[in-house]
Every structure is written in C-alpha cells, then in structure tokens.
C-alpha cells in the first residue's frame, strides 16, 4: 500500500458513494422481482392451505382472486380470508403475527368453516436459526396441528388451552410437542397461535 497525495477522506467518500450507488441501483432494479416473490410466496401458501395443488404461478394468483374473499379490519389490514368452495365456505384463513427469537414471525392459520378445528397452518416469514427455530416452518412440525379441535364439546368456548410445550412433554389432545433446541422460538410461536385462536373464538361467538 503506497502513500498518495489524495486525502484519505476523499478516497473513503468516493468509495462510499460508489458502493451506495451500486446498492441503490440493485435495490431499485430488483425491487419489483422481490415484491413479486413475496406476493407469490403468500399466494402459494394460501392455495396450499385450502388443499389445492398442481397450479402454475399465474393460476394460483387467479385462484386466490376468484375463490378467497378478503376481509379487512378498520385499519385496512387483512383480518381473514374466507375460502368459498362452490358457494359454501370451505375454510377460513387467519393471518398470524408474532415474535420469534431473532425477529418477527408471520404465518397463516386455516380453520374449519365452523371455526372449531385447525385445518392447517403455514409460516410465511421468520428469521429463526436454520435447523433449529427455523423448523417451525417444516412440514413435520406443522402437521402436528392438523385436525386439532380447540373448542370443548359443551360449546362453551372455554378459555383456550391449546399450547405448544417443551419437546417430548405434550400431554392430552390440547398440547403439542415443540422443537428441542428452539425454546424461545416455540414460546413466541405459542403466543402467536394463542392470539390468533382467540380471534377465531371471538368470531365464533359473534356468529356467522
């Protein structure tokens, strides 16, 4: 490395500008593609949750637009999607939002039209540790929730007791085994699921 007459601050300034311009260009150039990827991932997830397979990307977008009725809350955020199959309700999908160990977790929960049974759930976005917390999006884990009935038979909509617990300690039909090595992630996941199920039960009490 030689000594030059150009002041170091000027060199650093020039490198900062060049790097910044390159990254700004890339960000703008890829923005549309990235946004499309995010949207497609969400669409794919909704289609999967209602049990439809074998559609192309364009067909999936059309399917969601035609068959899923979006319901928004007062702030304009999607509160739930109602899946209409041959003019009857096939499933109701609720967006989930919670906190993991490293960042937010987003997902979707599908429940039966009677709002009493979990049909399935998917994680759309998370920042958890690959191989550990990140396994919350794995099929083997999410399958544990399918078919779980979260309303007692006497229809009282008693306080929720569906919980994700420490791996290997689940007891009874309303406890689900967590993932070993991912305690904090599972704690956040459990809170997120609980919050969403509360919302489902509120809708259930409010009636159709």
């Amino acid at each position, binding site marked *: *490395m*030689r*000594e*030059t007459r*150009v002041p*170091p*601050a000027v*060199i*650093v300034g020039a*490198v*900062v500008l060049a*790097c910044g311009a*390159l*990254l700004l260009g*890339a*960000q703008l150039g*890829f923005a549309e*593609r*990235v946004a499309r*990827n*995010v949207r*497609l*991932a969400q669409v794919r997830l909704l289609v999967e949750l209602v049990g439809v397979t074998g559609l192309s990307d364009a067909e999936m977008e059309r399917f969601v637009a035609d068959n899923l009725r979006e319901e928004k809350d007062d702030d304009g955020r999607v509160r739930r999607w109602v899946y209409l199959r041959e003019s009857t309700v096939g499933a109701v999908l609720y967006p989930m939002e919670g906190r993991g160990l*490293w960042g937010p977790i987003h997902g979707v929960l599908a429940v039966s039209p009677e709002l009493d049974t979990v049909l399935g759930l998917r994680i759309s*976005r*998370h*920042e*958890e*540790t*690959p*191989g*550990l917390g*990140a396994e919350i999006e794995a099929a083997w884990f999410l399958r544990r929730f399918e078919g779980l009935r979260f309303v007692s038979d006497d229809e009282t909509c008693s306080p929720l007791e569906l919980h994700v617990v420490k791996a290997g300690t689940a007891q009874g039909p309303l406890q689900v085994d967590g993932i*070993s*090595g991912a305690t904090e992630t599972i704690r956040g996941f459990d809170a997120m699921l609980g919050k969403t199920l509360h919302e489902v039960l509120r809708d259930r009490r409010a009636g159709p």
Partner: protein
Amino acid sequence: MSRHLATLVTPIWKENPIFFHVLGICSALAVTTRVSNALVMGAAVTCTAAATGVFVSLLRPVVHRSVRLVVEMLVIATFVILFDLMLKAFWYDMSRQLGPYVGLIVTNCILLGRAEAFALKNPVFPSLLDGLGSGLGYTWVLLVVAVFRESLGAGTLLGFRVLPEGAAPAQALFLPPGAFFLMGLLVWGLHAVRRRP
C-alpha cells in the same frame, strides 16, 4: 506447479481457512444442517471473497493505510448485500432458508482476513484467485460437514431419503453442539493426516 495455480490451491487445502486458520466457524456450524444450504452459502462466500479480492487489490494504489479497514469493510459489505439481494430476487425460497446468514458473511473473518493478508499486497489476478480459493476451501469443508449432518441427523441428502425407513436419525448431530463435535473431529483428523511424512 505454476505460481497462479499455487495461489488458487493453497487456501483450498494447505492453508484452508477453516482447518488451518479456524475462521468462518460460526456460519459453518449454523448452515450445515442441509447440503443445499451449505452449497449456496459456499457460493456466496466464494463470490464475495473473489469480488472483494479484486476490488481491494484495485484500490490498493490509492487507499491510504489509515483508512484501509474502512474501505475493505465497505467493499465486503457491498458485495454481500448485493448477493443477498440477488438471492431474494432469483431464489427466494433459498434466501428464506438461509435467513440472516448470508447477510452475516459481512462479519466472516475469511473475507477481511484475505483482504488484509493478500489482496492489499498483490495484483488483481492473484487476488481474484486467492479469493476464489479461500471460498472454495470454505465450501468443501461445509459440504463435508453438511453431508454428515443431513444424512445422519435428518436421514436425507439433498432432500432425498438415505436412511432406511424407521431408522431413527441422530438428532444430536442436527443441533449446533453436534456440528461442533463433528468439526472438531474433522480438524483433528485432517491435522493427523497432514502431519504424516
């Protein structure tokens, strides 16, 4: 062996960044649960190390010694973010699987280490080769660890089942401590092999 070939091969084997310098261990432990993750992570480190080598070497005549670290970090961060963006744009699923680890390449000591130790003192072409070699040296170690961890820890290889149905995978290998033991054994084994006359 020609000089250029030696520049490329030395960091792959004789001075492997993981085995010889024990650098880049954090990500090596974290992303080796799947072979596919290890491959993409290796590609990311190889590309960014090569690009960093080229640009740090190019800037060598004009950068004052007092600001060299700032410039090196700027160059490294730029290429890592660029790779991360491209992954998000062209391979979104993989980008989601690797999570924060692509971005964390910025803190991978292999890149800064090679920029300091090699690119600052050598012309552009050898610096490119050194970056490629270091990246490839990192990649093959990651692949070896990932093959062990995915096949024995999860029972699959690149997503295909390799353990017979019913055989319980060794879950401990899938957890970070498992990776630590495996890496330790590999470093031990390799040093033992190399010490032989």
